[in-house]
């Protein structure tokens, strides 16, 4: 009988740390659809350590570079952004057979589902201050001073938009199973009306949104999660993604279910020291929806290719894709009428 995941993880840690380690309370946790995510306790001679394992799955929502995700976490841990401490990056997979990394576990708090109505209740305004303020601090950081600046490619200021758009348009070209006229119209519009160059190159989290952080139910963020799509680029990219209607908890007025759009932009501008150019931001808002649809289209293909076994891929490729289509169509209708 083959060794269990806990046994293999214990063998790996014992070898790498050169001391006897046992693994207890290993449990997979929901979320983190692009990597398998587990919590566990490593019991060492010095005492127990509460940790998180992020392991590459056989198939996933998106192909991402775990080395860059690890560098992104290392870039912000202890630098004014709630990020866990990086512990080990294992690119070869070793005893776990697939690449993985380990980071510290932040205790307490929970992530709210992006499809839960009013998840922040009376603390929504405080949550918005912390959420958009944290994003502003990420945008303000100079990548050259950070580990991710060494791990990720730095685009030219005037090429950020093109690199992102062509990447996600390429994902749609590759993974589309049923013709998608709505998102294709949006892609053509984005190509025909490019934004001005980025005002600076920033770290872009890539999936900064409601539902992707731990909070304490009193409006305080405890940890920013899922850095798997982190890269360097235009800081407006994350802001557009964070405000996409998909992540508004079915609300119209409050972005991310927290605060009004103008207020969110104000919080972000104060924290980042940057300005939001309305025309540039309109481009990144539409782009966010195109990127979302590319991910959902990819999910639908992965669902089929994986024999329909993973329900999160089915949900993303079906319900979420249809909501995103509606969001894009309404954006296009407003833009064409303008």
């Amino acid at each position, binding site marked *: 009988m083959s060794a*269990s*995941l*806990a046994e293999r993880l214990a063998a790996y840690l014992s070898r790498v740390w050169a001391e006897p380690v046992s693994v207890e309370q*290993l*449990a*997979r*946790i*929901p979320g983190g659809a692009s990597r398998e995510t*587990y919590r566990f306790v490593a019991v060492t001679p010095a005492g127990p350590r509460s940790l998180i394992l992020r392991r590459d799955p056989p198939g996933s929502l998106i192909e991402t570079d775990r080395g860059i995700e690890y560098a992104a976490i290392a870039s912000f841990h202890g630098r004014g952004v709630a990020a866990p401490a990086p512990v080990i990056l294992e690119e070869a997979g070793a005893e776990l057979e697939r690449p993985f990394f380990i980071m510290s576990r932040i205790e307490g708090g929970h992530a709210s589902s992006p*499809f839960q109505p009013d998840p922040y209740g009376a603390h929504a305004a405080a949550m918005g201050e912390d959420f958009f303020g944290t994003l502003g601090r990420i945008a303000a950081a100079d990548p050259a001073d950070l580990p991710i600046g060494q791990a990720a490619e730095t685009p030219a200021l005037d090429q950020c938009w093109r690199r992102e758009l062509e990447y996600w348009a390429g994902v749609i070209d590759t993974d589309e*199973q*049923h*013709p*998608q*006229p*709505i998102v*294709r*119209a949006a892609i*053509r519009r984005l190509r*025909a009306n490019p934004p001005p160059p980025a005002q600076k190159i920033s770290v872009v989290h890539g999936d900064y949104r409601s539902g992707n952080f731990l909070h304490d139910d009193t409006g305080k963020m405890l940890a920013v999660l899922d850095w798997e799509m982190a890269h360097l680029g235009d800081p407006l990219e994350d802001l557009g993604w964070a405000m996409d209607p998909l992540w508004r908890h079915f609300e119209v007025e409050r972005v991310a279910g927290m605060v009004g759009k103008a207020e969110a932009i104000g919080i972000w501008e104060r924290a980042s020291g940057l300005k939001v150019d309305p025309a540039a931001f309109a481009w990144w808002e539409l782009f966010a929806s195109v990127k979302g649809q590319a991910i959902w289209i990819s999910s*639908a293909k992965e*669902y*089929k290719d994986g*024999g*329909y*076994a*993973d*329900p*999160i891929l*089915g*949900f993303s*490729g*079906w*319900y979420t894709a*249809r*909501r995103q*289509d*509606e969001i*894009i*169509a*309404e954006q*296009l*209708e407003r833009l*064409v*009428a303008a």
Partner: protein
Amino acid sequence: MTPSVPEIIRGCTIALATPAPPESAGDFAAGRVGLVSMLLGLSAQEANRCVAATIAENADIRALFAACGDAAVAEAAREIDTDLTIAGLDAANAALRRQLIALHERVEAAGNHDLDRQITALYVRMARGRRLELGRG
């Protein structure tokens, strides 16, 4: 459209029938069952109306083709749906959508703003016609 209702139901069956390793019990397993439950609820909605919704979308696209004066879509405008299975309607829908994409590209290149607005309004109707509502079985 993909995934279709038969694919989703097949997937739910597979997800429920596949034994999970010990480390995937607890929160992860509960979350997975919750997702399967949501998918089955959405499948109930979709099963009840997907044939009608696809027929309506196909008719809407053909009506625009008939009115737009573009010769390349004139033949498609005259077609009718004869295979009323989900797979048959989806195949007809895929063919119509491919022609709609090509038509929209021509319209944009020609600067035909009026038809551009009509096509964009059609997109809104198409998307709303396929809307799924969470929490409504």
